């Protein structure tokens, strides 16, 4: 009797605590990007004319496309959680796979966007960049820092979701134990959340 109780006990997974740990980590991420947002806000009020001019260089169409891509991927990852809770692991796997494809599309768009800027020699430290007014240098510096740090998060999220997909396949993530899928989804939503603010601040407002 006592041995069965013991084995039941060792299977207990406190998903509430696991989720709270993830949220605490997300709070630190919020302040990582939050610091950059504050620098952006102060610099924008100091060099509003330069920021206006520099922001015109950015391609709002690519920005909007990537917004749609991330919003859809946020839904597919949320749906994969629904699928595993309803004990439909195959649907969950496909939804994670689709999310990963969208993450790839986002990165390809980013590659072309940055590639075009590099062709125009608009990258930190280039001679063209050094000849710009101080405020425009600030704008492009923040643009590369914020979208670069965000793209790094997209890559990390992609790796995390790949691990989730493999564990779904092996059955390690199932209807009873899906904390990793839940936390992976939370991370991916954070990536989406940050882009929701990056897109209007960098691409839309000129």
């Amino acid at each position, binding site marked *: 009797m006592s041995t069965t109780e013991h084995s*039941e006990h060792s*299977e*207990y*997974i406190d*998903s*509430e605590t696991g*989720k*709270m740990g993830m*949220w605490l980590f997300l*709070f630190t991420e*919020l*302040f990582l990007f*939050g610091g950059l947002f*504050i620098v952006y*806000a*102060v610099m*924008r*009020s100091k060099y509003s004319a330069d920021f206006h001019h520099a922001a015109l260089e950015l391609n*709002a169409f690519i920005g*909007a496309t990537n*917004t*749609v891509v991330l*919003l*859809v991927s*946020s*839904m597919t990852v*949320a*749906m994969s*959680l*629904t699928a595993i*809770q*309803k004990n439909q692991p195959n649907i969950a796997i496909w939804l994670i796979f689709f999310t990963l494809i969208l993450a790839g599309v986002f990165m390809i768009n980013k590659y072309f966007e940055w590639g075009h800027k590099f062709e125009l020699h608009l990258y930190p430290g280039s001679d063209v960049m050094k000849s710009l007014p101080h405020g425009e240098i600030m704008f492009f510096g923040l643009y590369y820092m914020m979208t670069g740090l965000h793209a790094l998060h997209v890559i990390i999220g992609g790796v995390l979701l790949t691990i989730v997909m493999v564990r779904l396949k092996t059955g390690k993530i199932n209807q*009873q134990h899906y904390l990793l899928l839940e936390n992976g*989804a*939370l991370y991916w*939503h954070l990536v*989406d*959340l940050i882009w*929701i*603010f990056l*897109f*209007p*601040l960098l691409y*839309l*407002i*000129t």
Partner: protein
Amino acid sequence: MKNHEDHITSYSLNLSVLLILLILTTISVLAVKFHFGAFTVAVALIIASVKAGIVLTYFMHLKFENLLLRLMVVGVFLLFAIVVVITFIDYYFR
């Protein structure tokens, strides 16, 4: 085993949330073209905040989480707002 049953968000609710987010994105793209002058930044930030709130509430399931976690999230955003205000007070009255 889990000690309680988690709330399951239906596929259709997830899809509805996405549609609302896409509509808000379209509004924010169109709103910029109208040039509200000084309010352009404010309008863009308000729409972005509404979108962020929807993602937090539905996609991140805060609506169905316990009170402690919800208070923690509200507290962190308040803390961030205070940091922003203090930064600007410092910047303008230095």
